[in-house]
């Protein structure tokens, strides 16, 4: 199967220019309209998140029955999801910098997860958003753990990658926190551990803080109920990890999300960058709750086109983006949440197998195709 079904140079230079202008226009219209509505929205989210956090922690601490404890876990998990996805991720993209509110500034925001915000801004905002889906440049592509396309060389360890995928999802916040360590590059010797010491210090500081809060401080406050609280906090973190991982995988690793080579992206224009973002991202549909809890990453295409426009505007912007896609005959990758996730799982599994012409294919009976 060829992931790169659509090369990057199908449009003429004039077409490409006009296409870029149209997207610039969508962006500028949204920015010109920023105001009270956006401020109210994000402050409402912050209020909701804080209420969910307080309710969650109180229920976990004070609840007498498994039912109230369970409700507390769900509430705390929802609070962490809202904080990480709809608030933290979007604020750190600079979506609300124009408000001049010190608590919502991209460069000083720190979020409720193991990953140090400074490290995130570098690896995510810069590397991932600039080099989206470029093999070898976008380190979010498979997180240097998973093989997700035929373009990448197959190795026997990939046979077990589904297990790695599950592990990555379970410990997602720690995986993200350690992303900047570049474990793969350490292994092949292109970076040394010594160069990573400043990062490791930041990682340790933030990681300890998060661990201390959920597994030492709050349990200690509960006295004899410490175990109950630690377990509840752990489950809330697990829920957030699985959710965040699932949403993020649906954004770039669905069946039709494309990958690119460094060579074809060299010296690309702003319009070409837009074009690549469209081909490399995928959306999913669902109710308002799903969009909110995904931090509007359900509109991953719009997020990648306009990463610093307030995310709650993506639904209305997507109408215009789809019209542009239709006009220039560009695929707009969307589908139901369930369907898109199923294609992700298929892709993880299929890419774990050796390519068709690999000798292993002939030796293992169930890999043989008729």
């Amino acid at each position, binding site marked *: 199967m060829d992931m790169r079904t659509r090369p990057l140079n199908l449009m003429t230079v004039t077409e490409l220019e006009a296409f870029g202008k149209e997207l*610039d226009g969508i962006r*500028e219209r949204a920015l010109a309209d*920023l*105001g*009270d*509505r*956006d*401020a*109210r929205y994000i402050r409402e989210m912050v*209020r909701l998140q*804080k209420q969910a*956090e*307080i309710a969650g922690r109180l229920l976990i601490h004070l609840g007498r029955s498994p039912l109230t404890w369970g409700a507390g876990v769900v509430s705390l998990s929802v609070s962490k999801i809202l904080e990480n996805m709809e608030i933290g991720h979007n604020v750190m*993209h*600079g979506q609300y*910098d*124009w*408000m*001049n*509110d010190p*608590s919502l*500034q*991209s*460069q000083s925001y720190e979020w409720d997860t193991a990953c140090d915000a400074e490290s995130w*801004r*570098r690896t995510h*905002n*810069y*590397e991932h*958003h*600039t080099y989206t889906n470029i093999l070898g440049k976008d380190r979010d592509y498979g997180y240097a753990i998973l093989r997700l396309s035929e373009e990448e060389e197959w190795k026997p360890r990939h046979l077990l990658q589904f297990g790695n995928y599950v592990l990555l999802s379970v410990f997602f916040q720690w995986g993200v926190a350690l992303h900047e360590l570049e474990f793969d590059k350490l292994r092949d010797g292109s970076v040394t551990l010594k160069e990573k010491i400043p990062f490791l210090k930041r990682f340790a500081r933030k990681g300890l803080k998060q661990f201390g809060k959920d597994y030492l401080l709050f349990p200690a406050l509960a006295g004899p109920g410490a175990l109950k609280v630690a377990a509840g906090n752990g489950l809330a973190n697990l829920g957030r990890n699985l959710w965040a991982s699932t949403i993020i995988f649906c954004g770039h690793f669905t069946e039709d999300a494309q990958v690119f080579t460094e060579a074809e992206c060299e010296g690309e224009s*702003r319009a070409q*960058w837009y074009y690549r973002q469209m081909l490399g991202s995928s959306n999913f549909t669902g109710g308002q709750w799903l969009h909110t809890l995904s931090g509007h990453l359900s509109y991953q295409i719009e997020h990648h086109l306009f*990463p*610093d426009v307030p995310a709650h505007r993506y639904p209305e912007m997507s109408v215009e983006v789809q019209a542009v896609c239709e006009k220039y005959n560009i695929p707009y990758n969307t589908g139901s949440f369930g369907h898109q996730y199923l294609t992700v799982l298929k892709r993880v599994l299929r890419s774990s197998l050796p390519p068709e012409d690999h000798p292993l294919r002939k030796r293992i009976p169930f890999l043989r195709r008729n």
Partner: protein
Amino acid sequence: MTSQSIPLQPLLRAATRSDTLDFVLSAISPQFSLKRHMARLLAIREECPGTHTLLLQPGARWGGFIAGQHVGITVDVNGVRYRRTYSLSCSPQYYERYGHITLTIKSVADGRVSPRLAEVLQVGSYLEISAASGEFVWQEDKQVYTERTLMLAAGSGITPIRSLLDELCESRPQQDVVLLVYVRHAGERIFKQWLESLPSQFSHLRLEIRYTDQEGEITPENLLAACPDLSERELFVCGPQGFMDKVRQYTLDHGAQVAQIHQESFGSRPQRVVSSGPATVSFQKSGKSIRSTDGKTLLELAELAGLSPKYGCRSGICHECKCQRGSGSLIHAVTGQPIPDEQQQVQACIVIPDGDVTINSL
């Protein structure tokens, strides 16, 4: 476990920094916030068309003020948070007595905040105020000048002077004061009743109100005619920058010393200079500066100046290069639009200086 073995202090410090705790406290009452001073807006009074006095009740933690000082207030206009500084127009005694403070604010015709204050602020709501600050205050240690005082106010520059005089009236009503008030015309006169009542409250106060529309602007001659002994008085001057510059020049020419003159800047800041050719970009933190040239971005200029600021995509996507603007205007390299003045954090890779610019964070 003894109480000493529990790290109470760091825990308490962490707790006071916690956003969640502040959220809970603010939900009980905005004035319980440990992070911000919230004042309740009790009333808005119109002094004259375009000038309003806000009557505010600060929380218990607010530290009070000295007569003549100013406070910052934070106002949201269409989602954007603005901070503006206004002089207090009441005395500290008034605050001690009633627990209220007053700010008198004149609308700046093309301002983003002041013309909309009356519409944006709602009586009964809370707004964030800063601690009071400012040096436009009685200088207790310089006894030689405090014997006699000359006060000059232009337009809304009367506000801190009202605060100073209200205090003086309580502590030294025998003080020799000359108060010269400059307003365009009678319709723009604020604190009318207060001004009328002043002479009866002081034993040695002379008040003159000049209407500049009829009598013309301040001149060295009419200033000296109104106050022949000005070089022997302590001077308090408050008004638009142009007014204060003139007064300063005239009084220095008449033998006043720099140390005698206290002034408080008022009104809108000077209009920005439209760029004509290259200008200078100054980086405050490193102390470096560079001449800006033909459309180079702030990031490129910083690098040319020998700095190595943080950056990522260099094309306006990732916001890694955000830096803090001190002053000056900037334009967006792609759209050509000016970056709004209130936006302090700017993306260095995608803005071009338009005239002289200072950057605080580099």
